[in-house]
């Protein structure tokens, strides 16, 4: 058999680092390789000419090597058939797709290339050896993904350490009111799981903690976890709330997305798990003044479980598997000045609206516009949410805020279309007379039951405007939203009382650090890179390190939960058998080469 190698590159999202020249030389010396040609960046291949070349070289197999070489495969396949050769004999050495990046990129590229030359799938030849496995699992992130994964593993009778950065588990889902498309209430389906985590004998819940460092190898990782000082004894606190009644400090509540205040000693939300109060050292007078001032809460606590001088502690954990479920944050809407967020009082982000419309939110679920109030203490007029305030007569929802946009996030955030439709429903349900507009580009209702949901929203009388709106401006106290209504081919301006921004998702803060600690690459947008886009969407470069949920890329709750259970499967495998696969990097080029040789199908 005579093999011809063609090295070409797609200019986009290239895995950095591989020395293609070296790879070329290496391939030239592989058995049966007749020719190695480099076609450079984004070559325009003429199949006819290529066919002549192939015929002249009498090639029986073509190997296209590079980042996403598949983009050129059809040209070569056609060339092969034009040359009267076996068109199926075009093999891909997909560098980027199999993790060619960073140091060791060239070696990895060579290995991938070798497999392609031998006609053996890389994933088959490059299957790492297995190794001893510590049955315990570390789950990083206490959102729905982390909760689900932790419960799956713990229900399997295996030890789980669940590390959560904030004072409670629950993540973003706990903030939501309803969940699309079934509109069941997030609390009803989430809180039982949270309670289960809190009471599970096999789960050690480390809330208000962060992973400081991770060392070791697949099956035997050692994690250093910093437990921040909660300053309230977790198991002793009965969440009576006397402490926060006496606390004089008010700061915006994270859980209420800033549309309501909390005290410096607070419980994120009533059903928080662990169900204990927490001192926010950043705003606590006592902490800030090194005990000079205040300390009222500690004096008032009937159970004397507040220790304002408590210090954080450092824990060492030994685990076999690490599950990353750090989720996301939402894009800072003030970056898009044209939508007036932060300037117009009644321009809200999606999360703010979730809290506003939530029965347990600051207005008890009443959708109201902010009203101007005079703050006597500060002596300033400020916009406040008054539960008795006026409800908006018209609401506009803008899709793709910062998503699908070269100037912000080029990617689609996957959930915005549906939650925007959900918002439209909530508005129509609570304010039947209010006009509601959706400004969208493509309505991405792809999931099970989503299309039907979209139709339902249309039937409810929401105006669906095809066209991403451009500006939100103030015309003499009246907000006006302007955009092109493409389907009616005209520029429209609507007076609106409230604008909801469907802000896109961005990776959680500190995920870059975490990626470095774990040695797991991230894509150009900061999402964790999976081991294999199709074949292994929840695995990573590192053996025993798995990713679940949005931290791997935007996705909705069902897909997140599925991924969470999927990573649990991997962790359980290790825990049950006491063995698991090492990192891909543990295999040397020669190992892979040798394996590939043996795997060559006899023909």
């Amino acid at each position, binding site marked *: 058999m005579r093999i011809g190698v063609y090295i070409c590159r797609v200019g986009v999202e290239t895995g950095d680092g591989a020395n293609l020249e070296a790879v070329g030389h290496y391939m030239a010396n592989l058995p049966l390789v007749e020719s190695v040609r480099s076609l450079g960046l984004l070559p325009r291949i003429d199949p006819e000419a290529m066919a002549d070349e192939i015929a002249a070289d009498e090639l029986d197999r073509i190997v296209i090597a590079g980042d996403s070489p598949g983009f050129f495969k059809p040209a070569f396949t056609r060339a092969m058939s034009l040359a009267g050769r076996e068109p199926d004999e075009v093999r891909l050495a997909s560098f980027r797709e199999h993790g060619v990046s960073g140091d060791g990129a060239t070696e990895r590229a060579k290995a991938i290339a070798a497999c392609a030359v031998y006609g053996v799938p890389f994933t088959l030849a490059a299957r790492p050896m297995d190794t001893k496995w510590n049955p315990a699992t570390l789950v990083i992130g206490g959102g729905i993904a982390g909760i689900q994964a932790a419960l799956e593993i713990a229900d399997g009778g295996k030890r789980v350490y669940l590390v959560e950065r904030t004072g409670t588990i629950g993540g973003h889902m706990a903030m939501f009111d309803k969940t699309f498309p*079934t509109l069941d209430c997030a609390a*009803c389906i989430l*809180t*039982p799981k949270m309670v289960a985590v809190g009471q599970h004998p096999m789960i050690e819940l480390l809330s208000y903690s962060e992973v400081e460092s991770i060392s070791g190898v697949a099956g035997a990782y050692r994690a250093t976890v910093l437990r921040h000082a909660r300053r309230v004894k977790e198991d002793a606190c009965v969440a009576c709330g006397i402490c926060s009644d006496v606390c004089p400090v008010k700061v915006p509540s994270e859980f209420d997305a800033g549309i309501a205040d909390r005290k410096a000693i607070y419980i994120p939300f*009533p059903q928080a798990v662990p169900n204990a109060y927490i001192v926010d050292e950043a705003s606590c007078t006592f902490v800030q003044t090194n005990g000079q001032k205040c300390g009222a809460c500690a004096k008032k606590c009937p159970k004397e479980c507040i220790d304002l001088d408590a210090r954080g502690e450092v824990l060492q954990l030994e685990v076999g598997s690490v599950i990353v479920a750090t989720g996301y944050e939402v894009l800072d809407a003030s970056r898009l000045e044209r939508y007036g967020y932060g300037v117009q009082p009644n321009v809200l982000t999606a999360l703010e609206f979730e809290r506003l419309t939530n029965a347990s939110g600051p207005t008890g679920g009443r959708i109201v516009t902010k009203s101007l109030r005079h703050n006597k203490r500060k002596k300033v007029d400020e916009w406040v949410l008054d539960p008795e305030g006026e409800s908006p007569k018209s609401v506009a929802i803008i899709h793709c805020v910062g998503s699908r946009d070269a100037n912000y996030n080029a990617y689609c955030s996957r959930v915005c279309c549906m939650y925007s439709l959900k918002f439209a429903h909530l508005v129509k349900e609570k304010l039947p007379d209010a006009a509601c507009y959706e400004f969208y580009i493509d309505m991405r209702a792809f999931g099970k039951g989503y299309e039907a949901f979209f139709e339902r929203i249309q039937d409810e009388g929401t105006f669906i405007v095809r066209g991403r709106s451009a500006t939100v401006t103030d015309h003499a106290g009246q907000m006006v939203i302007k955009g092109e209504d493409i389907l009616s081919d005209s520029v429209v301006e609507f007076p609106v009382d409230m604008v909801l921004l469907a802000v896109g998702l961005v990776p959680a803060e500190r995920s870059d650090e975490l990626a470095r600690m774990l040695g797991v690459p991230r894509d150009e947008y900061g999402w964790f890179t999976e081991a294999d886009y199709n074949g292994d969407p929840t695995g990573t470069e590192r053996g025993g390190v798995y990713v679940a949920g949005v931290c791997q890329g935007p996705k909705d709750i069902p897909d997140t939960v599925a991924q969470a259970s999927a990573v649990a499967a991997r962790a359980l495998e290790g825990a049950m058998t006491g063995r698991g696969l090492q990192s891909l990097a543990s295999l040397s080029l020669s190992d892979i080469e040798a394996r590939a040789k043996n795997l060559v199908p006899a023909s």
Partner: protein
Amino acid sequence: MTFEPKIVGFLCNWCSYSGADLAGTSRIHYAPNIRVIRVMCSARIDPTFVIKALADGADGVLVCGCHPGDCHYSEGNYKTMRRMPLLKRMLADFGIEEERVRLEWVSASEGKRFADIVDDMTERLRELGPSPVKMALAGDAGER
């Protein structure tokens, strides 16, 4: 002094009972006239429970379950939804005003809603006065 009705509430464990708890954790005050009995699912609520409650002197019975579509057991609340109207019609034949038996959907995040329902029902029952069953029983007791 005004008549203070006694209300027996049957709440499903997953949505409504959590909702009632949330009213507590959020310190939302409501009338002390209700006595809550927890069941796993509103579908467990046998019509005889309601009758028994009325017979034992309750002035009203409140039945709460998950919102349609939210049932922890996927469709239990639909059974309740069908069952209650029948029961009410039967009770009506016995001269029991239909306001005395009330079916409501309360989710785990609707603490406020639960409180409002209890207040509202208490108010209505105050206006309605003691349950005829109670009166009848009292009457019997008197004759003996």
